[in-house]
């Protein structure tokens, strides 16, 4: 009985916590219309302690989404909130502009470190593929290690460090496309797509309000809240069969002759993290096959190099469908 009570307690608490994520998502939706599923995925990445790359045509709301998210959890004008920074990447940007530099302090007769915009909680890296590889790698190293090394000194970044990078697939000239190895750092690569006709019209009707809304977006979560939520995500239960399915998909890419670079073990781990977070965002304490189906493309696709276009379109979805069929027919008796 006690145990049962405990679990019920837990569930209650969880629902309280998930209530917070719902709050966050709703808050973002006041500005960004018709993209709830994408928002859910981005929030999942946030809770999975990862980073997200948004890739789409200009004008699909990438920056707006990133800003709204940042504002919902961080406000520059309050001490309690998180720090939000935005960098517009350009070819002439230097790593220094990103991480900061040592400058000579006259009063102390010494060099002191002037922190760059990386020392924040939420970073919007706009048009990341326009920066030189040098800058890109500086950013990516900090994303991976969660720290910055300059000379002998190593500076730790914030506990919560969430990068929302965007890139523009249209302009090829003057860009430095991210190599697959670096894309690997991003938990998910999302494209926002165009909204449906109804929402499109709705946006036009209310376009005046967008800026207004953006200005009035409230901060709904504190840093503490987010760290707590991240801790909660770790508690999500994953059934062995789900784990097997994740493994099957990952190893499936390795056995496919149409794949040049298959999924790594790290990809699998990241997939697991994302699944847990996504289940949490969806108000569940366990992962189901729908999570796999929803996330597989966003999490795994950009990590694989395919031999041809046909394989690019089909391989992963075939693997996922096969696993879904397997799971759907599976008899599990607890």
């Amino acid at each position, binding site marked *: 009985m006690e145990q049962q009570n405990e*679990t019920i307690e837990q*569930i209650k608490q969880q629902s309280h916590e998930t209530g917070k994520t719902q709050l966050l998502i709703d808050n973002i939706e006041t500005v960004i219309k018709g993209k709830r599923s994408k928002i859910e995925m981005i929030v999942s990445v946030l809770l999975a302690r990862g980073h997200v790359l948004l890739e789409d045509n200009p004008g699909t709301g990438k920056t707006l989404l990133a800003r709204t998210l940042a504002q919902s959890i961080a406000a520059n004008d309050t001490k309690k909130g998180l720090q939000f920074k935005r960098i517009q990447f350009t070819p002439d940007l230097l790593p220094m502009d990103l991480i900061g530099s040592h400058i000579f302090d006259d009063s102390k007769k010494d060099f002191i470190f002037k922190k760059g915009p990386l020392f924040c909680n939420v970073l919007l890296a706009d048009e990341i593929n326009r920066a030189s590889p040098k800058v890109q790698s500086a950013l990516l190293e900090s994303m991976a290690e969660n720290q910055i090394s300059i000379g002998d000194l190593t500076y730790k970044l914030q506990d919560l460090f969430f990068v929302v990078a965007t890139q523009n697939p249209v302009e090829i000239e003057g860009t430095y496309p991210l190599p697959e190895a670096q894309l690997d750092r991003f938990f998910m690569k999302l494209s926002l797509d165009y909204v449906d006709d109804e929402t499109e019209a709705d946006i036009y009707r209310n376009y005046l309000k967008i800026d207004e809304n953006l200005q009035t977006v409230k901060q709904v979560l504190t840093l503490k809240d987010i760290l707590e939520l991240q801790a909660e995500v770790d508690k999500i*239960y994953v*059934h062995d*069969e*789900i784990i097997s399915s994740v493994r099957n998909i990952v190893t499936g890419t390795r056995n496919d002759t149409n794949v040049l670079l298959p999924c790594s073990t790290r990809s699998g781990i990241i997939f697991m993290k994302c699944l847990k977070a996504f289940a949490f965002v969806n108000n*569940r*304490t*366990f*992962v*189901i*096959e*729908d999570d796999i*189906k929803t996330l597989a493309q966003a999490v795994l696709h950009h990590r694989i190099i395919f031999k041809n276009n046909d394989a690019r379109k*089909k391989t992963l979805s*075939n*693997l*996922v*469908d*096969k*696993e*879904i*069929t397997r799971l*759907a027919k*599976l*008899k*599990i*008796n*607890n």
Partner: protein
Amino acid sequence: MKTDKKNILIRILLHLIFLCIPSVIATAFALKGLNEYYAVLNNNWFAQTCFFLAGIFTACVLFNFRLRFLPITAILIIILIIARTIISNIELSEFNTFFYLVRFQVFSTLFITGWICGWGFSRLKNFSVIFAAIIAVIAIFITVSKSDFSFIGILKTFLPIILFAVYIIYMSAAVRNITAFSRGRFFTFLRNLIGTLFLFLLMMFIVGLLMKSTFTDIEKMWDRKTEKNEADGLLERNIIDSTYKMKDRMRPNPTFGKGKDNPEPMFVACINNYLDDEQTIPNPLYFVSYYLTNFDSFTETFEKDSIVPYNDLFQIVPSEIDLYFSKTDTAIMNLALKDTLTKIVDIDVYNINLSPKEFVAPITSFFCQPIAIENDYKAQFKSAYRAKSVVSDLNSAYFVYPSRDELLLMYQQQRYDMLASVENFDDLPETFYSYYTGLPNNDFIDSLKNLTEMITASAETPVEKIIAIRNHFFAVDEFGEPIFKYTENPGIPGIPGASKLAHFLFESHKGYCAHFAGVTLFMLRACGIPARLTVGFATIDRSDKNKGWYWFYEDQAHAWVQIYFPKFGWLDFDTTIGNDDMEESPQPDGTPPMQINKANFAGTGKITTLDTVNKFIDFALEKMTINDNEYIFEVPRQIIFDMTSAKIVRDTANLKFSELSDNDSGLSLSFDETLDDIKPAINTPKDEVFEMIPKPVKIDEFRIDVDKENKKEDDKSKVDSNLQKSSKNKISILFICVIIFVVILILIIALPYIIFKYYKYKAKLKSQNVNIFYVYKTSMFLLNQLHCERKNLTPLQFASTVTDKKYETEFEKFIIIYLQFKYSNTGITADERNFVKDFYYNFENKIHKKHRKIEMIKRFLNIKQTLKFYTNNYGTAK
């Protein structure tokens, strides 16, 4: 353009491999069967298959390109016609031209058939249906001609045909849609199968109307009243007691000399006929069953004629005569005895598998007396009779072939010398002569006459002509190979009509006894020699130990010719080329049964008084025979029998004299030599004969009648029950097959429902412990059967986007609970469990409301949907 070409090539390859080759194989089997049926095909099925293959492949390749059928086929036909004209105009000998023409016609027919098939496969959508039906009809023909009506036989013939039909229909649809599999392919397939069945039945109906006579044979076989079953060749098997009798028609399979592994013995006979007076060289004689004297040119059949001039056929049913009593046809006897060099020969025949109703004896038989079989041999022999024939000294089975034995050669020469004295048939009565030299009028007979004239050009006397004709059949070609060959498989086992005989004589040179005999008959008659066809058994002397005893096997059933010589009578003449195998592996002749003494006296009647002291009995004699003369007393005569040395037999048991009683009726036999002298003349009154018998008669054997009527009834009921049994067996096999078929059909049809019920049962909806997995499975199965498939959606997506929208159910909620139950570590609460319990009935009700009942049943029983449920691997579909 390039891909277009590649596609065409692939299509051609697919057609060739998956449609044409199997069709060619099926056709090969069909042709093989037809070859046995139609002699004109000349047993060359392989070449014929090649013709067909050439046709189908050419057409398949050509018609996969955009060629028009009609112009090209027209050109082809014109080419073939031109070729035919050229062949017929080439200066060859007449027969060669005829031969090549027939060959060419077979080729062109098969090529055109293949051509049409190739065209059909590559162009027509439902050609496979027609093709399958045609093959099925041919299969029926083959089965009919084989007369093998066992269940296994039918299965063997039809199972491959059915499999082939299913295959070809399915494959042709598959090859057609190789690029795009249509959704309703299963139904197309089913529809095509039903179409085949329908076409098949239609064809059978038409064919049945056209070939009614062929099918009546089969009907007869199934008809209980005819009591007959088909057996090989000239013999006919009686299904009741599995004995054989001679067939009334000439529809022989090759049986004479056929290398059958285990031919059944028919009967054993002892012929008391020897070439020399010391009785050292036995002289075997052919056993005659009946004659075919007339050729009906309308039906192209040899037939028995009931109004034969000078009929000397002794027709009798031995089993209808009482034991030891006899039937004698004195008219035949006198007719035959009138010829010179004749003698009366005794023949004993012991039936093994030959029907007791059948009577065979050497020419010219006139007497038949059924005799009892010793107890020791009763298991071996069914019945026995004695026969007497007027036999000419010139007649012998040895005279048939040129002998290697010098002594026999001498006798043979003697015979020819004697027969050479006959120079013409002028003395014969006109009716007799014209009847036995009658010929039909047709082209074949004309060409046969020419041939005969050529063969017998140098011969003068009839016997020289006969030898010339015989030598024609024994002729060898330049390599020393005999031109005429005996074959077991000359084509259609049927009545050798004129066309078949023509084919045999001029082309194939391969035939069995009926071919040889038929042609010989025509040739003899063409020379003006009176002749008739004879059907019976060939006699082969194989045993040195038991002289005069001959064993007759199934494969010795034979047909040959008899020739009439004035003054000498009818003589056997055989032109059939012997099968070498037969000489190499002779049948082992067994030990003959112990010959029973000739009964001098036989009498039936009733015992009136018994004298147990002297072992005498008073006997009321009703019927008696003395030395083969038969007397019937309307008023029983009292006679005293001396039973001191008599063996008393009832059925198979020996009795003591004391076991006899008054009023026992029976048959008394006496082998007493003193009775030998009583040889009454034919016209002696029976009273006088009765007085001639010395009294008391010493009786050697007394057979008590087992209550005759009872016995008869017993036999009858036995026969009836046998009949019923055999027909019952067939019916029951059929019935069982039908039942099995129906059960399988019902199972297949009801399978979805059974699965559904099983899941529902497993779900335990009524108990407290609802099995959520099976609730899920049941609902999914139900939805799947109603064409609401999950496809590649996850169950949750499926529930929210498809099911709930369509049926307004709470399926999504259920799925969420199910997923929690499935994947979480917390399990589900009691409330949720209760929800699941209520959920299902609501769910099913709502679904039922959405569909009409008939539609629901129709969809639900669709097995294809069930298969989909278990086989859908949407993930792997490319």
